[in-house]
């Protein structure tokens, strides 16, 4: 009797495991399938693409790559360069200055300390689009369109990164450590740069990755501010693919351009997936 109950429990467990793995398998399939299809299609010529559905890659990968790389209208090498400049410098600025600001409100006592902290939390949720209208107006007025730095500098003030850094500091930085350094005669900046920053390295790395990905994929503001071909970023170029005109009849090239837009972030992800996934949880909310 008892062993029967055990067995039925085992069977139940086995069935539920099968169901769970089936669900996981299906969701993983959904996540990968469309991108696999994109990859396959980027290896097919335009004519092959017209001749039907297949999951088997063909031989036109390099051909499509060559055509995409040398396209007259969509200068993807320049786009990738611009995107990289914006994403990399934003990532550095946003993580450094957010850490600095968080350190400022955490370690020091000053009159508006609490207000400052609450203020930054309050503005965290205001969508960037709300400032877009005024921002664009100013950009046009002062001739600041098509300047990459206009998209980079605002990353210094990133409330959500501040919030993350602040939480990280609260969890990892003992104030005593700062005071010990002061007794040793270190200046405040030196303490921050040489003692605090190394402690914050994991947090900075995580925020740099997220910031990089965010900037790399950002479309709304760059699309409104950058329209010169040599200043465009990758997402703007990808969006122009959607507006059909005669130059885009080569679908092999179109798929290849999408692959190229996604690839850099995917490479980063494959290398750093563990710490990225860890980063998702660590800063979001206090358990």
């Amino acid at each position: 009797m008892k062993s029967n109950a055990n067995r039925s429990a085992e069977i139940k467990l086995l069935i539920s495991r099968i169901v769970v793995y089936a669900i996981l398998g299906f969701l993983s399939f959904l996540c990968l399938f469309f991108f696999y299809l994109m990859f396959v299609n980027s290896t097919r010529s335009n004519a092959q693409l017209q001749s039907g559905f297949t999951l088997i890659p063909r031989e036109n990968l390099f051909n499509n790559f060559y055509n995409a790389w040398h396209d007259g209208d969509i200068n993807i090498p320049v786009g990738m360069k611009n995107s990289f400049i914006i994403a990399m410098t934003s990532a550095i600025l946003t993580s450094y200055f957010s850490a600095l600001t968080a350190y400022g409100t955490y370690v020091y006592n000053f009159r508006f300390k609490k207000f400052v902290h609450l203020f930054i939390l309050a503005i965290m949720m205001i969508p960037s689009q709300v400032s877009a209208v005024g921002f664009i107006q100013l950009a046009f007025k002062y001739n600041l369109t098509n300047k990459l730095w206009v998209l980079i500098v605002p990353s210094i003030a990133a409330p959500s990164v501040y919030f993350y850094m602040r939480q990280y500091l609260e969890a990892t930085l003992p104030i005593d450590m700062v005071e010990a350094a002061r007794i040793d005669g270190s200046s405040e900046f030196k303490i921050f740069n040489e003692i605090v920053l190394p402690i914050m390295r994991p947090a900075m790395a995580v925020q740099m990755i997220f910031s990089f990905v965010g900037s790399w994929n950002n479309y709304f503001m760059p699309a409104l501010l950058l329209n010169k071909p040599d200043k465009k970023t990758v997402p703007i170029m990808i969006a122009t693919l959607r507006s059909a005109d005669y130059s885009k009849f080569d679908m092999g090239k179109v798929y290849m351009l999408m692959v190229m837009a996604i690839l850099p972030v995917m490479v980063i992800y494959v290398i750093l997936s563990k710490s990225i996934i860890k980063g998702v949880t660590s800063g979001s909310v206090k358990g």
Partner: protein
Amino acid sequence: MKKLLSILLAMLMVFSLVGCSNSSEPAPAPADETPAETEEGKVLNIWTWNVEFWDFLGKYYADEIVDEYTYKKGDVTIKRTTYPSDGGAYQDALDAALLNQANAPADEKVDLFLAEADYILKYTNSDATMDVKSIGVTDFSNTYKYTVEAASDANGVVKGVSFQCCPAAVIYRRSIAKDVLGTDDPAEVQAALDSWDKFNDVAAQAKAKGYYMIPTTNATYRVFSNNTTSPWVVDGKLNIDAAIEGWMDQSADYVANGYTAYTSNIWGEEATSEMFATGKSMCFFGPAWYFNFSMGNAQDPDKGCFGDWAICQGPQAWFWGGTWILAATGTDNPTMVADIMNTFINNEEVCSKLVSEDAQFSNNQAVNAKFAADESYGNAFLGGQNDTAVFVELAKNIKFQNITSYDQLCNEGLQTYFQEFLDGNVDKETAIANFKDYIRTTYPSVTVE
């Protein structure tokens, strides 16, 4: 020096305006008198939305091709600035640049820019463009009249030239025409298609044989919109012309009867897939540049149908596109601007090469006539048909009329929103209401009723 130059230029412009109002006789070419010749800018900026003209400029004008964006002519660097046309992006960027023209450094000023018929009026009717006669473009004896009218402002002052003339035709698949009409001879096919009624009859025959008359309902749009009797905006109010209504009726009819393969954008993957050999659509519509540059799928070595095409006039005369080169006020390279313009309309050698090597229909009547009469000349894509001969006839009937600066987005918007009706998603009233709302959002200055 710059100041002196601009004063000189301004004086020249005033002079030429006075000259114009005095008589309409072509003034003696003042090119040699242009004092700026020796002291002009070292950078000539050209604004374009694609590379078509840019490539010709490299081939027939520049001394040296530095890279994709840069040419050299003498000691002047010619630079290209390109924005995509779709959704008004090009106009948008150009407007911003022209509004800033006075403040821009000399080497960043727009010197020359391209414009399409859809919005050329916005620029010709503004101070942003200058009288080309004042800089030495005076001989329009060989250009097609409509191309000059299109580049003129309300007072008849010419602000630019076109390097091409774009009479457009019906481009039909020879093999399908043979099957449906029993002939692929352009004259006989034309006889069967010379009115919309006949065209519709043939559509029924094509359907009976398992073909589509057109790849997409948008294919015929330009034919109708080119033959309107009133502009898109009348006294600041949106106006939908009877010809546009005609297109809507025809499209609805074609969808209901299955005469069209798709209802999509003509540039989209759906419509262009009909250009492959496997396509079932008989008639495409377009000018020389369309079948030479935009029918890539038909020219595909594996799946295309090169040579299985021919052109005829079709139901109505019309033109499509055409690229005008306009001189921007404030240019520091007036001599070169004029030189480029003259090269592409009056240099017989260049115009001849545009026809023979680049399959263009040039804006030089004498050159075109020469090729039309040349029996050895033919276009291999069209099975050896002499397309120039067809276009010479067509060009006689082109009218440039009822154009406004709002046309591009009105045309794009109407087709997009009407497609929703054709696809059965909304009723006709809603489709038109959505279009009106789009115009209201897009152009605050246009009243929509």
